[in-house]
């Protein structure tokens, strides 16, 4: 009798503790979520592995160079190459941005080269990542007396889809 009651009391305490723990682990979203994370010293950042860090930095360099550079002569190919590295939602935003470029770039013979100077990881889970990238954007064209140089800072968000890292957001700071 007494031992059965003691068992029930002990088990009840353990069940309550386990239930509380389950609620706690379910509410903790885990790494790689925070949309507002912009710095690698944020307490919510994660670095899932050296391999992922390297992969997302490389993909960011490729993707930013493609997204921020184009030539009036090869615009269709340049856009296709940039879109290939983006998620569907990012492709739609990119298309809207580039819609106005076609006419004016042909008229002005615009050539924009985007040189990625450096990349650095903010946070990376196995499915989401954010990378800070410095881009030098040189623009030349008939409408410019001389080429312009922009020293850009871009926060790039990436998502892994079907095993491939793709750019899902480009936030010029």
């Amino acid at each position, binding site marked *: *009798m007494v031992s*059965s*009651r003691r*068992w*029930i009391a002990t*088990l*009840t305490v*353990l*069940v309550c503790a*386990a*239930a509380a*723990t*389950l609620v706690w*682990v*379910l509410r903790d979203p*885990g*790494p*790689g979520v925070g949309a507002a994370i*912009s*710095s*690698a*010293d944020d*307490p919510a*950042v*994660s*670095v*899932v*592995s*050296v391999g992922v*860090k390297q992969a997302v*930095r490389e993909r960011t360099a490729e993707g930013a160079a493609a997204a921020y550079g184009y030539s009036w002569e090869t615009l269709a190919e340049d856009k296709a190459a940039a879109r290939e590295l983006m998620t569907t939602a990012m492709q739609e935003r990119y298309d809207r941005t580039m819609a106005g470029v076609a006419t004016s770039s042909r008229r002005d013979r615009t050539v924009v080269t985007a040189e990625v*100077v*450096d*990349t*650095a*990881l*903010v946070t990376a*889970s*196995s*499915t989401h990542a*954010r*990378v*800070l990238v*410095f881009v*030098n954007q040189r623009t030349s064209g008939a409408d410019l007396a001389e080429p312009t140089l922009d*020293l850009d*800072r871009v*926060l790039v968000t990436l998502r892994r889809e079907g095993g491939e890292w793709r750019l899902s957001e480009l936030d010029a*700071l």
Partner: protein
Amino acid sequence: MGGRAGSWVAGALAILLVGLLVAIGLVIASRDDVDEALTDDQQAAAAAARAEALAFLTVDHEDMDRLVDAVLAGATGEFAEQYAAQRETLTREAVRTEATSVPEVVALGVGDQDEDSATVLVAANSTVTNTGTGGEGQVRYYRLRLELVREDDRWLTDNLQFVR
């Protein structure tokens, strides 16, 4: 309560407990396997770089000695030597132009990193006033690259450059 009823309740509780433990295990297993050591190292280097970048970009012509000390507190090697050597020049120029600069870090990431060294990129904005801005604050946009080294478990900056 009879002995039999008691053992039924105990049995049901035990099954419930096992179910909850399995659920907790499944939730945790579905999570990313984050490299905690790597994450901690990155956060530590990043925090040190933020402090150093902010110290470096802060100017107050009325308080230059303390500000130069703050930069040197996070510096080492050649960068520390060069910066220390410029103390007088920096102070004189800040006083002459009545300069102030209030910086903020907009974004910060960590590049290559190993046990004892790390490269950190910082995007920072600073609101600057001096005799040339006519009392109005002007926002400057910066790109910095800091090279840090680990000395006695502290991350110190041994190179800091504007990225062109």
